[in-house]
């Protein structure tokens, strides 16, 4: 029996029960659309996690002196030549920055807090959150700028403002404490008060002068594509021999763990949805077979092979599934478009920050995820049709026609 004929038979059978199949289709659309929509949020969340980890002065890859991570201090620093730049093709490299990052004590007339004092070259900081943070006052002009750039939350804690002076105490290269006054150039507003409380920025060269060093404590590199990490790493390892070169996954293991978990979550979510769908699917297909016992009996009697019976049922299921998946993907896509501004979670801002998300989650729809959902759904459609198809094959022509 030709495939085209089987196709026509299946199609007609679907159209015979419009209401029922429309319901089934609606269920498939809700399932596929729901999975697509939810997945896009999981992806958006995942991306946010990585972006905020990478933005957090981490970068995709970072170079440190050995021991710095356990005991950060200017004595664990290294020299980077002024004309050095990462030997990475410009298409892969988004940017890089050499910084000094050391613990320090910051004091206003009223309050004292502990912070990380970061000496930066502002022109390099397009790669970190500093590059696009909102601020009040001025940013640092260049690496010789002796002023500081402070987070809003810290300014509140210290009860100070732009233009005032703060005293910073930190350890110099010789192990002795340095104490110096800094004027506040500007106050930045970062995503989340954690960053604002932690980081105080100043010019790198100015800080080097204060600490009596020519070295830096870290080089951070940001790539355009996370996947290129390993080749860049080996390049860095051979250049900075004796130093530690680490990717963001090692630097932020908790975020990396969540990142991996998000991949799994997509499958769990899919399995649950399809589990709920499969009952209705099998139910409809079995009914479709059982109400056609007579027909199948006749078809068998006029010579249809058992194989063709199976194919017919499988085609029916697959056709339903395919149209459902197609519509579902469109619905999911439309929902994502509708939500393209992002889902505003600022109502739960501190909770969101604790989990490492931003307060607006933008759904991200990936072709690969859509293909995965479509592929797995079609496989499920075929698997779900096997039992009904087997029932159809078991129909004995003679008995069936006698009914």
């Amino acid at each position, binding site marked *: 029996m030709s495939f085209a004929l089987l196709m026509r038979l299946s199609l007609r059978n679907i159209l015979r029960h419009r209401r029922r199949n429309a319901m089934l289709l609606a269920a498939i659309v809700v399932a596929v659309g729901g999975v697509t929509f939810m997945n896009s949020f999981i992806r958006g969340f995942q991306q946010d996690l990585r972006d905020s980890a990478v933005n957090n002065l981490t970068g995709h890859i970072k170079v440190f002196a050995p021991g710095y991570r356990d005991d950060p201090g200017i004595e664990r620093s290294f020299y980077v030549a002024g004309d050095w730049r990462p030997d990475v093709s410009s298409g892969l490299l988004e940017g890089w920055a050499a910084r000094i990052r050391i613990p320090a004590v910051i004091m206003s007339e009223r309050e004292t807090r502990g912070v990380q004092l970061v000496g930066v070259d502002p022109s390099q900081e397009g790669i970190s959150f500093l590059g696009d943070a909102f601020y009040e006052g001025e940013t640092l002009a260049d690496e010789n700028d002796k002023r500081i750039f402070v987070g809003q939350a810290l300014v509140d804690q210290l009860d100070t403002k732009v233009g005032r002076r703060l005293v910073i105490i930190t350890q110099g290269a010789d192990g002795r404490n340095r104490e110096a006054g800094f004027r506040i150039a500007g106050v930045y507003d970062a995503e989340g008060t954690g960053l604002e409380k932690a980081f105080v920025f100043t010019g790198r060269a100015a800080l080097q002068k204060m600490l009596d060093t020519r070295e830096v404590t870290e080089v951070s590199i940001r790539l355009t594509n996370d996947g290129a990490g390993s080749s860049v790493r080996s390049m860095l390892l051979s250049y900075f021999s004796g130093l530690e070169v680490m990717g963001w996954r090692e630097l932020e293991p908790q975020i990396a763990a969540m990142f991996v978990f998000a991949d799994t979550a997509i499958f769990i979510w899919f399995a649950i*949805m399809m589990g709920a769908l499969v009952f209705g699917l099998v139910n409809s297909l079995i009914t479709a077979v059982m109400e056609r016992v007579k027909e199948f009996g006749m078809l068998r009697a006029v010579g249809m092979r058992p194989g063709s019976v199976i194919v017919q049922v499988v085609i029916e299921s697959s056709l339903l599934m395919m149209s459902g998946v197609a519509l579902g993907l469109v619905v999911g896509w439309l929902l994502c478009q509708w939500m393209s501004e992002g889902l505003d979670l600022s109502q*739960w801002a501190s909770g969101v920050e604790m989990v490492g998300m931003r307060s607006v989650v933008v759904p991200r729809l990936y072709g690969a995820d859509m293909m995965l959902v479509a592929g797995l759904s079609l496989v499920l459609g075929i698997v779900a049709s096997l039992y009904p198809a087997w029932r159809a094959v078991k129909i004995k022509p003679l008995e069936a026609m006698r009914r």
Partner: protein
Amino acid sequence: MSEAAALPVRQAPRRSGDLLWKTAFRNIWRNRRRTWLTAGGIGFAVFLITSSISLQDGSYIDQRESATGLLTGHVQLVHPDYPDESKFEFFLGDLSDKLRAVRSAPGVVAATPRVQAFVLVSADERSFAAQVLGIDVAREAKIIRFFETLQEGEIPHAADEALIGTALARNLGAGVGDELVLLGSGRRGGVAAFALSVSGLFQTGIEELDRSLLLTSLATVQDGFGLSDEAHTIVVQGRGPLQARPLARELERTLGSSVRARPWQELMPEVEQGIELDRVSGDFMYGIIMILVGFSVVNTFIMVMFERTHEFGMLLALGLRPWSIIGMVQLEAFGLWVLGTLMGWLLALPLVIYFIVWGISFGDSMEQLAEQMYMPSSIHGAITVRAMLTAPVVMFFATQVAAFLPSLRIRSLNPVDALRQEA
């Protein structure tokens, strides 16, 4: 005679009610495969939603306990200006009177004072900023879990001993037994300076605490900063985290306007918000699952309508009213719901018991993450009204609606046409 003639007429509806139940029950078992599949769908939803909510609700309980139990307590009493600007000079006076009043207030299990200040801590050449917290060590050991995070050494016994975070210790290059010098600004701008020795190191997994907290005895900090019968905070432990808000209101009423009572939800908004976020995203997922299963129930009843058109035509011809038939179909839907719910509950029960008794522990990589979110290293399930009833109640209405929509057709069914249809 007239009475006897009226009797069967009055009895008839009652009998037909019984009959409807019976017929409905039989109809459920007429197509067993379909019944099992439909009830299976309902059961799947009930199983999945019941067990997940049980775990969610249980984890919320664990998370609240763990968050409040670590250091914060249920309610903190502070100076009315302290919440806006946590400055040293906003402390509570007449501490012993206040403590006495708080301890005798209803619902208070324990209350203990704390003094806190930002200081410069030095060990040899190195100096870092830290928050020093002066506490009643012996009393606090009974009410907070903080001392369980001790990594090395012991909790402070003598007045001049201190506990510091592992990260702070690393930064200072100090270990157990080493001497620390604290420098801060005391009352009325005076300088507060005193020395402490490290008795132990703690590690909570919460970076801010590990990096900048120093714990020592209340008396030492009070003396060092020139406080007498004064403290910044009175930490109150009530009967449970959920009673914190009413307890805070009650304490504010008792103590008057000289004190602000802050429940832990205000002190750690991230915990309650994280819970809320988790709950909302869970509800979204449950909603979709129930819609899916709802569709499959609608489908079942569309099939029922289709197959039994002949039968319904006959019932109409026999004189049954359309609404009685619809009622019967609703009863069938009810039967399916009972079956599905029981299946779902039976399946969920062992899992829920497992969650309650053994719980789920996080892997190594997630454990640190859990700590950061004030989660214990394993979470347990709980039997709550929300867990047990959400899915059954929603599914009850869903099945009723799902059966009702297709069966509305019965109203416009013409018995003659219906009877002509193939059985």
